[in-house]
């Protein structure tokens, strides 16, 4: 049942991906209700899966890499549904679907759904640490998507080659603002998550890895705040930092559990 929900959810995101590819090939790229509906259905199915999994493990379902990837995908979609319309970034959905599809497909195909070792005691702080940290990664993922949109828009503006997608991307200035806000939101969530982890006493190596990601984003945001980096570099760094965060995420998981 659980897995069927996830497969159905992944299929919804595949539909979103298919629409994006079709629209790009047909040079007829525009926000579509179809894409939003596919994302929303995928989100509902994801939520149902996570609820069932949470009931099963009697905890926030982030106990192994498989669950972390699904929870991360869920966070990305949740944030998209919240910030997408608010910042008129409707096309964020077209870029979000492919990313979420890849995460979920990998989670489904790779042999990573191994039961985690049972925990000695239940700690709500530990749950908070895990949930907030993964949600922070969700915000960083969306920042990365907005960064890619910025770079696509910037490239077209610089090269004077305006393709179909250009007319449907938000203004480049709005994208720069969206990246900043998403990264700040992720940074705030990660800060609280790490603090909760510090209080509960997670292993030192995990803290160090988490802090490395925290420091990377802190440096980027500080550079942006002090206006030391151009918006273009900021977008590149948002993409690069998320790639780094993803690597650390799998590294953290090798260390096991939460």
């Amino acid at each position, binding site marked *: 049942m659980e897995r069927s929900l996830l497969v159905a959810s992944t299929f919804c995101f595949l539909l979103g991906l298919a629409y994006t590819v079709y629209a790009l090939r047909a*040079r*007829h790229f525009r926000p579509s209700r179809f894409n939003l509906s596919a994302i929303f259905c995928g989100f509902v199915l994801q939520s149902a899966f996570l609820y069932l999994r949470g009931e099963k493990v009697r905890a926030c379902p982030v106990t192994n890499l498989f669950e972390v990837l699904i929870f991360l995908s869920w966070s990305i979609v949740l944030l998209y549904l919240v910030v997408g319309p608010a910042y008129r970034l409707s096309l964020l959905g077209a870029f979000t679907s492919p990313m979420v599809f890849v995460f979920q497909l990998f989670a489904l195909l790779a042999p990573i759904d191994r039961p985690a070792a049972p925990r000695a005691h239940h700690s709500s702080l530990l749950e908070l640490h895990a949930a907030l940290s993964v949600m922070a990664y969700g915000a960083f993922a969306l920042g990365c998507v907005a960064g890619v949109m910025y770079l696509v*828009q910037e490239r077209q*503006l*610089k090269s*004077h080659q*305006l393709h*179909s997608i*250009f*007319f449907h*991307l*938000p*203004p*480049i*200035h*709005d994208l*720069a603002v969206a990246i900043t806000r998403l990264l700040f939101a992720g940074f705030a969530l990660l800060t609280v998550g790490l603090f909760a982890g510090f209080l509960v006493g997670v292993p030192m190596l995990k803290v160090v890895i988490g802090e490395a990601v925290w420091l990377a984003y802190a440096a980027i945001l500080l550079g*942006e705040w002090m*206006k030391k980096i*151009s*918006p*273009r*570099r*900021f977008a590149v760094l948002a993409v690069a930092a998320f790639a780094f965060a993803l690597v650390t995420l799998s590294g953290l998981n090798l260390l096991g559990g939460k």
Partner: protein
Amino acid sequence: MNIVCLGLSHRTASVEQREKFAIAESELGSAACRLSTTDGLGECVVISTCNRVEVYAAAPDAGFALAALRRFFAERATADDTAFYQADATESIRHLFRVVSGLESMVLGETEILGQVKKAYQAACDAGATGRHLNKFFQRAFNVAKEVRTKTNITRGSTSVGAVAVDLAEKIFGKLNSCKVMILGAGETSELTARALLSRGAHSIFVSNRSHDRAVALAAELGGRAIHFDKWHDELLPADILIGSTAAPHAIVTREKIAPVMRQRKDRPLFIIDLAVPRDVDPAVNEMDGVYLYDIDSLKAIAGQSLEVRRADLALCEQMIERHVAEFGVWLAKSHLPPLERGAHLAKRLAAS
């Protein structure tokens, strides 16, 4: 019941001929009302824009209706018969669907015509000049226009240099409400472009020109401020959009002049529109982070590209229109049948499907 159309447009008549037949917007309703009371004409809509004057009528006899419409035009002025076109049955349906979709416009795909036709139809409605047939006809036409606009690229991009510049500015800054514009060289093209930017919300115009008097005059016209030509780069910092159109024989906007300004601007982009030939801006400026430079050729190329994109979708638009023409033709053919026969037709269609 037949739907007929008689009129003249930019394709068949010169502006001198069209202006003789033009009808003021405030008179469209009364003209339609007067026509609809003519013997043999039940329903009428009169459309008058700068590019066309057309009358649509629903009547049982097409020949009789067209003759009445010809008399209506003859009362207003005289013109060669070649200036007019007429259509009945399927042809008139196709014509209106093409007109509202922008396929008959001077600039392919322009959208202003839809609003103008809507106003003309509303005026006729308010004057009681329309009935069941024209109501259905015009409502269907508006649906066709909506479908064509949303499902094809027929309205994609802009087709004039000024409009392309404004579109690009909006793609860079979003709303132009907080944008400041600097004009270097008070030429006609730069003035038109500045006016287009102002109409979309830009404000605070600075004008700099070799002849300071001309700069003062243009600044006064645009509600801006004139600055001395040798001081323009000192005033560039607050500007978001720079329009260059001087007659200088060499580039006056260079990396060296822009670089210190960009350092102070931090993350605010700078959009430079170079309308001058020879160019006012060194092309190397476009390589700088946050600077977007467009010269007259690149703006013209984008305008041309938009037109090409629109033309490429022409066949698709026509396909959509043909489908609607056929569907509406079927409805019109059955509309004169008594209710019982209409019911029988519907039952037959349902059985067939």
